[in-house]
């Protein structure tokens, strides 16, 4: 209960802070829109229609959730370090990984705003009418995906405590995850060696669930996998963060000075 309250309050305040920032708030909303626009244009050019276009619309709108998390998760702790609050987070008598959950969850929430914006944009500019067969399933799938992507972001954020340049790696994995997790390209169309990687990445299951719900199939099995993979990230993060914080204390990388 306490943990839930901690995550809830911290998430709300982080969200408040982020939406006041041009980079985290405005850009996270706009940037995926450029990619979505290009992709909508490509599908129109290729004369896509019906389920293919719907699938593209779902995928490209969900891109924003990952985009908001991947580019900012690794940068967020750099910001905390710069403003001198990273030390205060480490000092808090809570598992460090737990404190990062509201952080990355707030980024994913901003990503969810961009999802709505992209869907509206697709409808207004490209006339893509989104008819969702199972609205409740779709909504649950979006919420679970936001959570799962937030958890993946937490893993990235943790790696950045020790490595100051992790933000560059964070930005670099934006596009590979779009590709590998089947946001726009069916995972079965990717080379065989990539597929195991897709399977362990929670966004793969989240996007599959959204698509299933939109098409009127059952999203629940995919959602189960999504939650399972995300929960395993939490477990990994707990252990890794303990080691990382210890290492940061040994190497004095928590503060700027």
């Amino acid at each position, binding site marked *: 209960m306490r943990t839930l309250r901690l995550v809830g309050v911290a998430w709300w305040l982080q969200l408040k802070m982020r939406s006041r920032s*041009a*980079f985290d708030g*405005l*850009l996270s909303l*706009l*940037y995926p*829109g*450029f*990619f979505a*626009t*290009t*992709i909508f*244009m*490509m*599908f129109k*050019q*290729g*004369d*896509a229609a019906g389920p*293919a276009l719907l699938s*593209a619309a779902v995928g490209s709108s969900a891109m924003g959730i990952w985009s908001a998390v991947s580019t900012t998760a690794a940068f967020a702790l750099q910001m905390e370090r710069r403003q001198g609050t990273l030390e205060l987070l480490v000092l808090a008598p809570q598992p460090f990984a737990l404190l990062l959950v509201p952080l990355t969850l707030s980024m994913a929430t901003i990503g969810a705003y961009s999802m709505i914006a992209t869907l509206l944009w697709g409808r207004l500019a490209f006339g893509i009418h989104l008819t969702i067969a199972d609205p409740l399933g779709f909504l649950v799938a979006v919420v679970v995906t936001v959570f799962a992507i937030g958890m993946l972001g937490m893993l990235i954020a943790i790696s950045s405590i020790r*490595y100051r*340049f992790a933000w*560059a*790696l964070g*930005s*670099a994995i*934006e*596009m*590979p995850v*779009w*590709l590998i997790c089947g946001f*726009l*390209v*069916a995972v079965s*169309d*990717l080379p065989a060696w990539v597929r195991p990687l897709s399977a362990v990445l929670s966004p793969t299951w989240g996007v599959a669930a959204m698509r299933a719900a939109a098409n009127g199939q059952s999203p629940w099995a995919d959602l189960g996998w999504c939650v399972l993979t995300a929960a395993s990230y939490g477990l990994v993060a707990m252990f890794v963060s303990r080691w990382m914080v210890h290492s940061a204390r040994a190497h004095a990388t928590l503060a700027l000075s």
Partner: protein
Amino acid sequence: MNSLRIFFIGGLTSYRALFHWLSPWILVPTFLLTPLFQIFLFVYIGRTAGISDDRFFLIGNAVVNAAVPCLFAMGNTIGGERNTGTLPLLIASPAKRVPLFLGRALPVIVNGFLVAVFALITGSLLLRVDIPPATWGGIAVAIAACSISCTGLGLLGAAVALRVRETAVMSNIVLGILIVFAGVNVPVGAMPGWMQVVAGWLPMTHGIRATHDLAAGAALTDVAGTLLAELGLGALYAGLGLALLRWFEYESRARATLDTA
């Protein structure tokens, strides 16, 4: 002579000091991996969308990545000075503005050029897209033209940064606009009329088109006009940037609006 010194030495120093991306931890993911991932992403999306033209996506996405250093490093020359608190010193210095800023542009242009060339070569090898050796020289010229013109736009961005704080946000938005409009993933000819007009005024559009033509076997002389248009746009943006810098500098002294904090 002094102007030459400011041009070369000052430019390189500021590039290294302000744009501290010269660590391999940043260099490799930002300039080598991301362009490749972008190429693969759009090649695969193209296949899914029913446009199987790997070479088209390879060229567009490789070349457009030259814009990343050009826009960000150049746009950051003012923002970075402000962050380190050296902006007033720069403004107060007696150095001539044109060599000062053009000097900052040179390493950036080289950086952009190398990023695009690496992405193109590696991408073509990985995707097994054939680009005949006879076309390489011409393509290099086209990529250089793109890097120069984008840096011109970056210089305009640097000038705007005297007034706008969030340079990184601005550079990202410009990059997004280039990806949509410059014919990177959708040929300009397939766009609605108003988008074609916008595309014509952007750097990259002409250079990417020239690169496509060159790769398809056109001679450098055939695309000379297109490349000149590309360079002309770059000069136009750079000129606007320098003029704006001068005006902002004058204004900020007159009205004490120089945002140096």
